[in-house]
């Protein structure tokens, strides 16, 4: 890292909007920043009102560079969300926002970083990890990977169809889903971590993303399972 990274605002045009779950929308944005980025990174989004008032927030990128020149964001419509509210209620194809980034070298992965890759996600924390799985499938299918995913319900699990299809189709990838608000509700626990690690073997890279509470619990469980803390990278949101 000898050259300093400089982030500037670039226009981005909405090219697709699709509901993924009752609360989460996939938003695809065409932007010249989307030529090259690493799985797991995020972008800053800036919206500007008629009178010049601005708001900005950070969103993880779900996509990987694929030649389309677009980013896919997965935005959860939070109650009172100033920017997420615009995405969930207003955004339509052709709208323009501003982006800068991609940002975040620490919470990102590419094949040369190696594996096996142990991923743990709570709720919408799955988005940057989905990008890592997409990158793996695109270019490094030989690297083993496992995803522990805690969602409230199956209906609220983001990209569940894609993840289950990958679990069926991709040798070396296993999905370990648990739901916390359905029959047989269960939170992430030592047995789930043990099951993922039994399939995966000792991980070489670990990424954990979700709420503070989820990340704290999952980090402790994974360290208790014998993984060196220095292998673990975390990203937390909310309170």
């Amino acid at each position: 890292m000898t050259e300093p990274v400089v982030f500037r605002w670039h226009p981005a045009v909405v090219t697709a909007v699709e509901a993924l779950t009752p609360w989460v929308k996939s938003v695809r944005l065409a932007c010249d920043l989307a030529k090259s980025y690493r799985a797991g990174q995020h972008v800053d989004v800036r919206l500007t009102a008629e009178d010049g008032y601005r708001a900005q927030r950070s969103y993880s990128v779900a996509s990987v560079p694929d030649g389309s020149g677009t980013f896919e964001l997965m935005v959860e419509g939070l109650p009172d969300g100033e920017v997420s509210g615009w995405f969930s209620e207003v955004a339509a194809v052709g709208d323009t926002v501003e982006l800068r980034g991609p940002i975040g070298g620490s919470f990102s992965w590419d094949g040369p970083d190696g594996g096996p890759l142990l991923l743990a996600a709570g709720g919408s924390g799955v988005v940057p990890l989905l990008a890592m799985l997409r990158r793996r499938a695109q270019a490094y299918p030989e690297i083993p990977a496992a995803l522990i995913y805690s969602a409230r319900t199956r209906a609220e699990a983001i990209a569940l169809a894609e993840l289950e299809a990958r679990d069926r189709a991709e040798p070396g990838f296993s999905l370990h889903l648990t739901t916390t608000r359905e029959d047989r509700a269960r939170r992430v626990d030592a047995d789930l971590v043990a099951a993922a690690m039994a399939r995966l073997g000792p991980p070489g890279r670990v990424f954990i993303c979700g709420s503070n509470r989820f990340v704290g619990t999952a980090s402790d469980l994974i360290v208790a399972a014998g993984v060196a803390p220095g292998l673990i990278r975390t990203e937390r949101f909310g309170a």
Partner: protein
Amino acid sequence: MVTRGFVGRRQPPETGARLPPGQYLTQDFPILQIGPNPAVDLATWRFTLREGARPITSWTWAEFEALPRTAWHGDIHCVTKWSKFDTDWEGVSIDDLLAAAGIAAPTGYLLAESYDDYSTNVPVADLLGGRAMVATRYRGEPIHPDHGGPARLFVPHLYFWKSAKWVKGLRFTQEDTAGYWELRGYHMYGDPWREQRYIGD
């Protein structure tokens, strides 16, 4: 560039005046860090001042707790856009730390170094005159490990990534030397009122 249909949620004027540009007010206390909380044992904890590689002086936890204490009340601002108002911190000011070490700052810059191998750079002038401390209490209680306890650097007039969690020492450097996030594109200084989030801002 106007975003179609975006109105925004304006802050009341008394809130707006306290919010640096691009920030929003939160009542929560979000947590941001690069990895798991490091295990920090007070029995072996030490806080060390260094000039380059050379140790100048160090304190055990008991010795550190016996140093003069400073309280601070006010607002903190994170580069990820949240600000939190009316927070209360207590610890040892950098002025008192240098006085206890019996030295003046040997250089104009330093790196705060942490138990998780995080580091961040700050000009020494920004740490003197009561503007910064090594905090050991939040709202009168020991700082929870999630928020950087047992001790974190506390520099509230800069973005909060400069307030290194789980700090174990200050290393004086001849030049302004980029720390962990600064090597990854974050601003060398980080003034929230000038919105210095990233290099080039």
